[in-house]
């Protein structure tokens, strides 16, 4: 009898040890929800679905990763959902600038500090675009034309009091020119409005406008970054992303990059955060991801841990200042 117990104990121990993977640490035990606080088809959604595809294709997770769009209230729906899931490690969220702008503009009870930072995946660039049929060859020409028109030239952008309008207001402040800002639902729609000459310029992300650029319908004037983008493969007529000058070199001293980062629900344990950091490191190494970065001309800065949290904090302060200056803060 004693012997049997010992055998059973040994067998149980073996089983238990077998159940724990060789590398100690946390792993998901049910499907992971990947929340997108924006609509289907937009930049964040495309990135989330690409990650989902890469994870499935390369078998990077044992549990499925399920993309869920929660776009209500300019993304507020998604943020509040994750905030309410404290201690649930099976929920991650991809963020864009609305991480800062939505709570500031609408006053919903949310701050990025409610979430657990995981990793910055990339930064999205912003480019000033005009219709290719228009005579403006440089950002200077265009700003001059905007001044001449006295506020009647139209800037199309995604959403109201979000990143596109913040850049527009920053341009007005820097140059004294006045735009009429017209908000649309998504970046793709904005790009087409520019091609159809219903607006005069946009500050679309590269991935939103690249198709129209390749088709020769729109012209990039400058990029809102400290240095030109690093991709030298020609897109159209021998021009590459690299050939777009910085706005600063054109006398338009504005820099704006948008966060594409991952957060977890509040109160995540350290090994759980670690798991996702490792996962995204693996995603970044795949050729599919590198191809995606190239298509969208992303800035591929990667950050985790304290660096990332610090970056987000600085960025939040900057948004608060920018939005305060523009008068975009919620009244309460």
């Amino acid at each position: 009898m004693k012997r049997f117990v010992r055998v059973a104990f040994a067998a149980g121990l073996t089983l238990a040890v077998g159940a724990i993977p060789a590398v100690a640490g946390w792993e998901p035990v049910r499907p992971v929800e990947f929340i997108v606080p924006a609509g289907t088809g937009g930049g964040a959604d495309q990135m989330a679905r690409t990650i989902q595809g890469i994870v499935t294709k390369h078998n990077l997770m044992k549990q499925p990763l399920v993309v869920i769009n929660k776009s209500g209230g300019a993304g507020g729906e998604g943020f509040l959902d994750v905030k309410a899931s404290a201690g649930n490690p099976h929920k991650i969220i991809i963020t864009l600038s609305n991480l800062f702008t939505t709570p500031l503009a609408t006053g919903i009870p949310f701050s990025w500090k409610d979430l657990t930072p995981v990793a910055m995946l990339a930064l999205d660039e912003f480019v000033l675009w005009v219709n290719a049929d228009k005579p403006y060859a440089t950002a200077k020409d265009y700003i001059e034309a905007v001044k001449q028109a006295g506020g009647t030239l139209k800037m199309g952008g995604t959403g109201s009091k979000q990143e596109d309008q913040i850049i527009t207001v920053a341009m007005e402040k820097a140059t004294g020119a006045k735009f009429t800002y017209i908000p649309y639902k998504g970046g793709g729609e904005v790009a087409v409005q520019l091609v159809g000459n219903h607006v005069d310029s946009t500050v679309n992300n590269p991935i939103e406008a690249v198709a129209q650029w390749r088709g020769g319908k729109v012209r990039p004037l400058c990029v809102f970054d400290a240095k030109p983008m690093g991709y030298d493969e020609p897109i159209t007529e021998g021009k590459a992303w690299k050939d777009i000058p910085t706005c600063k070199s054109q006398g338009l001293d504005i820099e704006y990059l948008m966060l594409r980062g991952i957060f977890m629900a509040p109160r995540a344990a350290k090994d759980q955060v670690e798991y996702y950091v490792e996962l995204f490191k693996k995603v970044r190494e795949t050729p599919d991801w590198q191809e995606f970065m190239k298509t969208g001309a992303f800035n591929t800065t990667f950050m985790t841990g304290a660096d990332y949290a610090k970056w987000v904090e600085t960025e939040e302060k900057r948004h608060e200042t920018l939005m305060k200056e523009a008068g975009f803060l919620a009244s309460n």
Partner: protein
Amino acid sequence: MEELANLFHGFAVALQPFNIMVMILGIVLGVIIGVLPGLGGANGVAILLPLTFSMPPTSAIIMLSCIYWGALFGGAITSILFNIPGEPWSVATTFDGYPMAQQGKAGEALTAAFTSSFVGALFAVVMITLVAPLVASFALQFGPAEKFAVYFLAFCSFVGLSKEPPFKTIAAMMIGFALAAVGLDSITGQLRLTFGITELLNGFDFLIAVIGLFGIGEILLTMEEGLSFRGGNAKINLRVVLHTWKEMPAYWLTSLRSCLIGCWMGITPAGATPASFMSYGIAKRLSKRGKKFGHGEIEGVVAPETAAHAAGTAALLPMLSLGVPGSPTAAVLLGGLLIWGLQPGPMLFVEQKEFVWGLIASMYLGNLAGLLVVLTCVPVFAAILRIPFSIIAPLILVLCAIGAYSVHSSTFDVVLMLVFGVLGYLFKKCGYPLAPLVLAIVLGDKAEEAFRQSLLGSQGSLAVFFSNGLVGTIMALGLIALFWSVIQEGYNRLRTVTA
């Protein structure tokens, strides 16, 4: 004639055995998705998207677009059998489809719906084949003012062409506008009418409203009438299908008109929902049998279904050629294209010929396969009606609740659905039409957005709505539709005076 050669090459691609297999698989999955309320085409495609990453892009898009066709077909099934539209564009199908089912003519209604869907889709595909490049440039002319004009026309044709008392229609529509205004105001970025309730951030989702208004409202009415569900004696067999087909050519004029409305609305990014409503409204006014509409007239099923499918199919054209999705499902497909490394836009037709024409060929074949699949299943669907109401009603309730929950995974929505159910019941009891309410919930915020975008662009001048031939014509048509009955009465009076 280069297009024709490309198309035949496309057929060769689409007819490979593996592609035929994914086509049929897609259709079956799509029909199931379409039948379950709440789980619409967009969600279905999004869930199944990762499945396709291992396939070549052409097979993948064939499978996904077939899910889309399947869902379009499937949406009509619950509309007709249970008065629960699975998709926004199936709402107009319930107006005559459900009464037909109640009269024991579910088989005829389903056959008519499927066949007209096929006709509409076929018409749109032929148009895509012939005039693809031309049409793309037409879509570019649509700015906010033009878009508003199209919505305006949809609202006006509903008020002016409806046989309901216009003031009841307008009252219902205004309630719809008020509901549509809840949530984030996309022009100012501020929250409106949410009263601090975070669940209302998103506004009232159309699907939840519809599941409640139609599905739950209908169950409440039936319960009041003593739990009887008419239509249990439906006889369905191949003869019904053939008989219905024999009848259908009589409605060729309605079909053709609906095809044209559908294609036009699909390309101008207004979409399938206004197309189906407008087509129904116009058919009701212009048809000889228009007075019987709403009491189970087969023509009332043909008109919206044809237009919805023509629009749904035509909406893929702006997506491919401009990269603008015309519907939520098209938006998910767009995401898929990018993952497969294809950049939709003006260059797609030049650089990815095999892909584009393979897709277009699969539209022909997918719709044909879809028609065959759903027609053979008509007896199965119609047999559901023979189940006693006391068994089917709880099932419908559960389905409705699951559907409402799955839209945003929120239990608040299930409560909201029940509230809408009571509202739907009250509307029917007081003789107010539900359709204008639904139309306003679906299109109200879009119309408002387009209106305010136009005024921002014109520095506040209303003249923007008559600033060019295109927008002016659509607005004028809208005004004529709005005052149609007044104009007609005036004309009649004038005639009696001169006579």
